[in-house]
């Protein structure tokens, strides 16, 4: 129990008075509260959970980010100035995310923060970045339908993952889709997009179902697969449920050659946990797979494995976490040293291109999302994906693809088109 002593209270009041005295003038000087890089260093925040439920995947994001920062510094930094990462551990908890973000933005005055895996944690920090005009770089594929002036999105949105995937599935397997997802916003938004695409292709949704997060008993769901006999099971189930679903699918005698699962969320990580024999023959669409062959990816995988051990893996979230730091450095390099603030970095980032492991990517100057290279992978026994299709061109991000009449503009607003 804290006790009030007279001295403590006096100190506190004096402290408040001091803060007021020194704090006040800032109101009058425009933008003086803005984070600004000073001296020979550029401070950036790194906000990925190192503990808690999503620690495994977020640790890989933290590592990819720090590795990119090291590469940039080894190559001479940004116009001779070193990037200094300030690492915080938000412990997989949205409230802690908000608290740590406040520390990075207000206390450390970082000019940008790289962070978040879940949408919940991004939503939790958003008000802080908006209030203090700072900039958040978010690497995860997500459901879209967000447009913030204070976020650069480098992960895929639904139109990028599905534009080629759904037609390919229809062509190769058939028009009858069963949509199965975990019960939260991401699967529902993805399925909205899927339904629109299917409608255009003359496809049919024979079932749409959402299971509770963490669900592991799929006998009833599998029963429905058997009865409705879809051509494709379109899955946006996440986390441990993915493992349970794949195992019970095979144990029930279903055959991926006739009724494959097509997922937007099953990565090398889940395949390793379920075992290759249960993933074999199912498909995932993502802009990046560890097995993708390009000089940039060979370099990226080798660098991760030499730094974090030969068993370290890369995945479709750690790759954007890596290349977005390089995009940040390119944007910052365009600016004069005295002008390095989050809003100027954001403007400089628009149109930036970088040769990422997945291919040449670009930040869109309208919606601050990223042009990416969707690929279709087929899961293999060894836990890797064999890439069987890839987009011939980069795909434009459209976070409001499923919502005609709504667009994301640089002002961060959603407007009705005339």
């Amino acid at each position, binding site marked *: 129990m804290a006790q009030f002593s007279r001295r403590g209270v006096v100190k506190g009041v004096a402290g408040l008075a001091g803060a007021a005295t020194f704090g006040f003038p800032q109101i009058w000087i425009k933008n003086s509260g803005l984070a600004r890089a000073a001296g020979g260093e550029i401070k950036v925040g790194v906000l990925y959970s190192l503990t808690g439920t999503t620690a495994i995947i977020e640790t890989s994001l933290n590592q990819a980010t720090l590795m990119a920062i090291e590469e940039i510094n080894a190559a001479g930094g940004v116009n001779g100035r070193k990037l200094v990462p300030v690492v915080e551990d938000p412990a997989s908890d949205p409230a802690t995310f908000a608290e740590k973000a406040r520390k990075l933005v207000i206390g450390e005055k970082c000019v940008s923060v790289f962070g978040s895996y879940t949408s919940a944690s991004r939503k939790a920090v958003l008000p802080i970045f908006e209030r203090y005009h700072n900039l958040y770089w978010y690497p995860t594929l997500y459901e879209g339908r967000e447009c913030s002036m204070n976020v650069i999105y480098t992960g895929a949105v639904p139109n990028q993952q599905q534009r080629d995937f759904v037609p390919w599935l229809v062509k190769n397997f058939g028009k009858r889709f069963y949509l199965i997802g975990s019960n939260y916003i991401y699967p529902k938004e993805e399925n909205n997009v899927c339904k629109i695409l299917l409608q255009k292709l003359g496809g049919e949704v024979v079932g749409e179902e959402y299971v509770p997060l963490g669900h592991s*008993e799929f*006998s*009833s769901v599998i*029963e429905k697969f058997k009865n409705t006999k879809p051509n494709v099971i379109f899955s946006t189930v996440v986390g441990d449920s993915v493992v349970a679903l794949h*195992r019970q699918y095979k144990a029930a*005698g279903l055959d991926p050659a006739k009724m494959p699962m097509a997922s937007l969320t099953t990565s090398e990580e889940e395949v*390793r946990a379920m075992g290759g*024999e249960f993933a074999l023959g199912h498909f995932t669409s993502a802009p990046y797979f560890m097995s993708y062959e390009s000089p940039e990816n060979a370099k990226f995988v080798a660098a991760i494995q030499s730094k974090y051990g030969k068993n370290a893996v890369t995945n479709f979230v750690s790759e954007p976490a890596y290349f977005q730091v390089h995009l940040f450095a390119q944007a910052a390099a365009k600016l004069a040293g005295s002008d390095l603030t989050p809003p100027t970095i954001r403007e400089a980032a628009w149109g930036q291109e970088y040769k990422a492991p997945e291919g040449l990517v670009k930040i869109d100057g309208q919606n601050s999302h990223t042009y990416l290279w969707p690929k279709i992978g087929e899961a293999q026994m060894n836990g890797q994906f064999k890439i069987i299709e890839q987009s011939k061109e980069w795909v434009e991000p459209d976070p409001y693809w499923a919502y005609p009449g709504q667009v994301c503009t640089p002002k961060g607003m959603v407007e009705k088109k005339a």
Partner: protein
Amino acid sequence: MTDIFNQVFSGLSIASILLLISLGLAIIYGTVGVINLAHGEFVMLGAYAVWFLEDHFGLGLFPCIVLAFFAVGTLGWVVERLIIRRLYGRVLDTILATWGLGVILQQAIRLSAGAELRYVQMPPGLSAAVHFAGVDVSAYRLFVLALTAILLAVTYVLIFRTRFGMRLRGVVQNPEIARCFGVNTSQIYAMTFAYGAGLAGIAGALVSPLKSVSPDMGTGYVVDAFMVVVVGGVQSLLGTVASAGIIGELSGGLAYLSNDTIAKAIVFLGVVVLIRFRPQGLFALRVRRG
């Protein structure tokens, strides 16, 4: 017709897993009178025991099941000696203590084995489906069903047909009188707690190839297990079996008619209504108090 058979089997399969994870809890709750909130973590430890033995020693699932029983059972015995027996008669304190124990076990696994999902192999002979009465059913689920029936029979014999079981029933009815007749009640409690924990270990070992293995997997199981025990009535083996059957078929059927989210909500609602009007559960006998 095959639809109905399929559905009944699927419900039965859910029921067998429910029974498997609640059997140990029912025994501990019913005889020792302890509400063991760490039960889910005992299940989790069973699953990790299999992963560890498979990964490090290359053992198959069947020896792992036996070893998981003894490993988690031994841990249960230690827990009873160190913590639980100091708290008999203090229901709220045991709830708090076992909950804390659950948190500790979960974090210990997270720190030692890591937080990632773990891979446990399904025995190759059981990973396919078998054709049975006109439908395809999972061989592994049949195996779980059979093993659950065997464990149930073993438990029945242990409680109703052995000297240990007779002493156990005596202690449950009246610990003071049992003590007067020379029954070592403290030992009975310790052995019962260990047996219940061991059953949880087997449950964890059996679900690990079918579901996923992660440090927080126990959280869901403990809720299911309590639901079964509360509906069945404490200390009634028959009640636990009936209740697992009812809840399994009901959630399977409702999930088939609507979806799993709705099914879960309706089953919970049903349980709440039931315990409002029949707090002692469907089949109630006596509970040890104090």
